[in-house]
């Protein structure tokens, strides 16, 4: 911030300022009418995520009320068992996949650029694409409920219950395809949040000066990137089993249903923390503001966030303690489950210490934070109880677990979310909510929640199993269930009160003054509600509390006295900064509004629906159309005139990112490949798991894959990769001669590899419906073939772009991005060859 005084002393003539603001408005304008569907701006997309998430929450809430109505009295026939199963499954699915994660992503998408002093996220079209995938996937999934063919195997879809034999309808397919579609959205958000936080913070905002909320979102986004792919793989495999008959989870065919549990919980347990961490981030943002002092132990908080993120991946088997495994293995997971409480405890003590040392103001947002502290601590304590194996065995699959889960998820996510909603409401609307309605909403929700779920611990301890549609009058559970049901309606009234308050405040709320809560972070330096570009100019920030130390900042930003105060060039610009120090590295010009994200998502929706209806030719055509849209979208990047209408650089500014060798595209590709790697490692895990554990595993004595052809294909790939490395080295030395020809040849080598792999597949004559072995080989080969083809097509496009002048010595970034893909493809390819073709030859198969 020190230099911002220097910046802020910069004087511009009123006419210049007026023209600059007009340019800025024009460049960042959001179209209206049908054109609004093309908006990619993070503020709009974030709001869309949150509003859609809220709508799905209401659906999930109605389903919860139906469940509680059914269980209010013993022996009720309010719902038939098959409908009850659908309602229970959809309640969990909607709340976890369509509400909790998307609404938090939406909040992060909306808030992160504002907090780190950027005008937008780094890949705005990816945000928009993610939103459309979420909306269409959610609607497809939800439509099953209205057609009475919703999934009914529980939100975790355990096999064999979810397999074709026991779930012959389309319910499981709706779940598998719909959720996979929605998860594209989660991964999109995860990738771009990571890159935005690391590479687009405003000038001077070093890693240790970043708002704590950004640390929490960084951890959440990284966890999404690594945690979601195992479930995507599991869903793909289960759908293949259901649609084609590949027996991945069928013991008779050499599969194993426990593999599904591993893949599901490899995602499922981290997901609890993916949901909790943004909630904790809201708490860490609000408590210092309402305590009027910086948080105690910023470094400890960062330590706790990172530790939680990692250790939460080591707990997945504690959901599976009853499936039968060695006691020693159980102790590993039991110990890890206890360990994860330590970083959570550290955060709680930091929050308490901050409140203790500050002067807390008990306003509505803080009520929710206190509610969070009470509810979440109780949920954490029962979590430690459940980490103990003998206790876990006793209460497994009872209402005790349901109570624990709701204390953790509602306490850890919903309470902070509503607190955050009340806190940021003036930013969203420019108006203040009602204190009276807000307090009523809190107390009704708080009392209703505890009345519903505290009681459920007892019903669980008394032995009531979860997911039963009714119970007998002689079980002794009726009073507890009645209290739970009545309380759940009290909670619903509280939530209705909050919704009424929010709706009314848009019309009747008092206009909010600038920075109404006296907060310290940059989002309050924007206008209320914010403009599409957030900041007229981007300030240099070298403190954790910019608005406390420089309260004049909103004014100087609005007067255009800081960085990037020019828009005549027609580019949407943000800073690209060093991840550690926050020093300026480049000016990132980001893409503008576009139909491509919507079109691509629509094509994928057609794929999803065609697969549901088993119209495979249409699905194939839709895949090609989606690929076409995505590639056309990629064509408009970098030095393309639509991405950078004017390539002149401003004096004194760093270069445009498309003119460098380390722009955000490299980072985006790297993080996307991390997600891809998690998918691949899950597949590899599945291969070795079935090989060693599956009771009926059958492997031919001789591998059906031709090693000679595989090695030849690998050599073609290796040659292509080496050539691409050479091209990039030459670009680094500003030597562009023969670049297009080189790229065409590399693409041809990719095509050769692909052709050889097709040959391998044809020669192998795999019987994919007979054995899990052949089915895994098929999926693995298709995986490497898709990557090979993708690498070849992207390289071919690079060659074409050289011809158009979009790639070359002056714009060398894109070949560096494609090189990363080739490196990944090559590494994965040789691992596949060794695992699937070499090791079976060395160790020998069984029949």
């Amino acid at each position, binding site marked *: 911030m020190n230099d911002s005084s220097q910046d802020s002393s910069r004087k511009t003539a009123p006419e210049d300022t007026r023209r600059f603001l007009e340019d800025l408005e024009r460049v960042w304008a959001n179209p209206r009418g049908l054109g609004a569907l093309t908006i990619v701006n993070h503020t709009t997309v974030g709001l869309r995520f949150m509003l859609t998430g809220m709508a799905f929450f209401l659906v999930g809430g109605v389903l919860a009320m139906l469940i509680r109505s059914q269980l209010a009295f013993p022996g009720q026939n309010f719902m038939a068992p098959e409908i009850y199963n659908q309602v229970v499954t959809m309640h969990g699915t909607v709340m976890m996949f369509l509400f909790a994660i998307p609404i938090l992503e939406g909040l992060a998408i909306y808030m992160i650029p504002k907090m780190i002093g950027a005008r937008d996220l780094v890949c705005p079209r990816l945000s928009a694409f993610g939103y459309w995938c979420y909306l269409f996937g959610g609607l497809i999934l939800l439509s099953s409920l209205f057609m009475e063919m919703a999934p009914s195997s529980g939100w975790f879809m355990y096999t064999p219950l979810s397999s074709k034999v026991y779930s012959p309808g389309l319910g499981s397919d709706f779940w598998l395809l719909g959720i996979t579609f929605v998860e594209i959205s989660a991964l999109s958000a995860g990738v771009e949040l990571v890159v935005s936080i690391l590479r687009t913070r405003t000038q001077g905002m*070093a*890693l*240790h000066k970043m708002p704590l909320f950004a640390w929490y979102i960084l951890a959440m986004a990284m966890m999404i990137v690594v945690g979601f792919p195992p479930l995507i793989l599991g869903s793909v495999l289960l759908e293949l089993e259901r649609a084609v008959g590949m027996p991945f989870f069928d013991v008779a065919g050499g599969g194993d249903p426990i593999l599904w549990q591993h893949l599901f919980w490899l995602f499922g347990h981290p997901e609890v923390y993916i949901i909790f961490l943004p909630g904790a981030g809201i708490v860490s943002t609000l408590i210092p503001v309402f305590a009027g002092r910086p948080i105690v132990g910023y*470094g400890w908080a*960062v*330590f706790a966030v*990172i*530790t939680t*993120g*990692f*250790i939460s*991946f*080591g707990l997945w*088997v504690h959901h599976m303690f009853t499936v039968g*495994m*060695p*006691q*020693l*293995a159980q*102790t*590993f*997971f039991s*110990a*890890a489950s*206890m*360990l994860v409480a330590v970083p959570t405890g550290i955060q709680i003590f930091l929050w308490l210490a901050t409140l203790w040392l500050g002067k807390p103001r008990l306003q509505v947002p803080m009520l929710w934070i206190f509610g969070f502290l009470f509810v979440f601590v109780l949920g954490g304590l029962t979590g430690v109880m459940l980490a103990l194996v003998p206790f876990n065995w006793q209460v497994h699959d009872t209402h005790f677990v349901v109570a624990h889960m709701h204390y953790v998820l509602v306490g850890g996510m919903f309470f902070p979310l509503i607190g955050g909603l009340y806190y940021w409401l003036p930013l969203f609307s420019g108006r203040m909510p009602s204190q009276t309605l807000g307090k009523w909403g809190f107390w009704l929700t708080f009392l209703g929640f505890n009345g519903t779920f505290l009681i459920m611990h007892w019903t669980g301890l008394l032995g009531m199993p979860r997911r039963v549609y009714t119970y007998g009058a002689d079980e002794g559970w009726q009073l507890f269930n009645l209290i739970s049901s009545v309380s759940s309606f009290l909670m619903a009234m509280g939530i209705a009160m909050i919704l009424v308050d929010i709706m009314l405040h848009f019309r009747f709320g008092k206009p909010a003054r600038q920075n109404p809560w006296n907060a310290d972070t940059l989002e309050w330096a924007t206008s209320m509600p914010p403009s599409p570009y957030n900041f007229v100019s981007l300030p240099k920030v070298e403190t954790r509390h910019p608005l406390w130390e420089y309260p004049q900042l909103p004014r100087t930003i609005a007067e255009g006295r800081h960085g990037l105060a020019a828009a005549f060039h027609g580019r949407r610009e943000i800073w690209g900064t060093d*991840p*550690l*120090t*926050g020093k300026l590295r480049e000016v990132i010009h980001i893409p503008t509004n576009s139909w491509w994200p919507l079109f691509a998502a629509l094509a994928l929706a057609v794929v999803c629906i065609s697969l549901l209806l088993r119209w495979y030719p249409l699905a194939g055509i839709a895949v090609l159309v989606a690929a076409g849209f995505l590639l056309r979208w990629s064509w408009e990047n970098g030095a393309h005139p639509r991405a950078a209408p004017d390539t002149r650089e401003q004096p004194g500014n760093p270069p445009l990112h498309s003119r460098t060798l380390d722009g955000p595209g490299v980072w985006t590709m790297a993080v996307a490949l991390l997600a891809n790697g998690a998918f691949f490692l899950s597949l590899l895990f599945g291969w070795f798991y079935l090989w*060693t*554990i599956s009771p009926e595993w059958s492997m031919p004595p001789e591998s059906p894959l031709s090693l000679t052809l595989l090695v030849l294909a690998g050599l073609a790939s290796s040659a292509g990769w080496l050539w691409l490395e050479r091209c990039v080295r030459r670009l680094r030395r500003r030597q562009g001669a023969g670049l297009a020809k080189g790229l065409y040849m590399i693409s041809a080598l990719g095509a050769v590899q692909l052709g050889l792999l097709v040959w391998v597949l044809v020669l192998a004559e795999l019987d994919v419906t007979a054995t899990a072995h052949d089915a895994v080989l098929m999926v693995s080969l298709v995986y490497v073939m898709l990557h090979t083809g993708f690498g070849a097509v992207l390289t071919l496009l690079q060659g074409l772009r050289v011809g158009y002048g979009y790639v070359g010595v002056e714009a060398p970034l894109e070949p560096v991005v494609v090189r990363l893909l080739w490196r990944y493809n090559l590494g994965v390819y040789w691992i596949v060859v060794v695992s699937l073709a070499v090791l079976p030859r060395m160790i020998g198969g069984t029949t």
Partner: protein
Amino acid sequence: MRQILWTHPINLVVGLTLWSVWFVAMYGGLSVVCAIAPPDPEQGPLTLLNAGLALLTLITVAFLAWLAWKCFHASQQTTMRAAHFCAIVSAGLYLASMVAVLFVGVPVLGLSPCV
């Protein structure tokens, strides 16, 4: 150059990544050996498998302790605030990873591996 190595932000994730790899190796190794060649339950915890797991645990603990020390040392040397922050938090994370390895690994000393 050496100082940059220990103050680099990558250290923030290396310790717990090592913990994760160690964790997967322990669970995976145990599961594979129990599936292929389980030791006699009569042997109790005194098996080659437990010895191997304990050895892996000790090596990992020693390595993490060394990494923690290097980062702590670098944090005292650097004058750059961002680098100091990364180094000191990383030292704490290496230490936490070490404690996590010990805590999760201790049952190897007392339990039969495949029962």
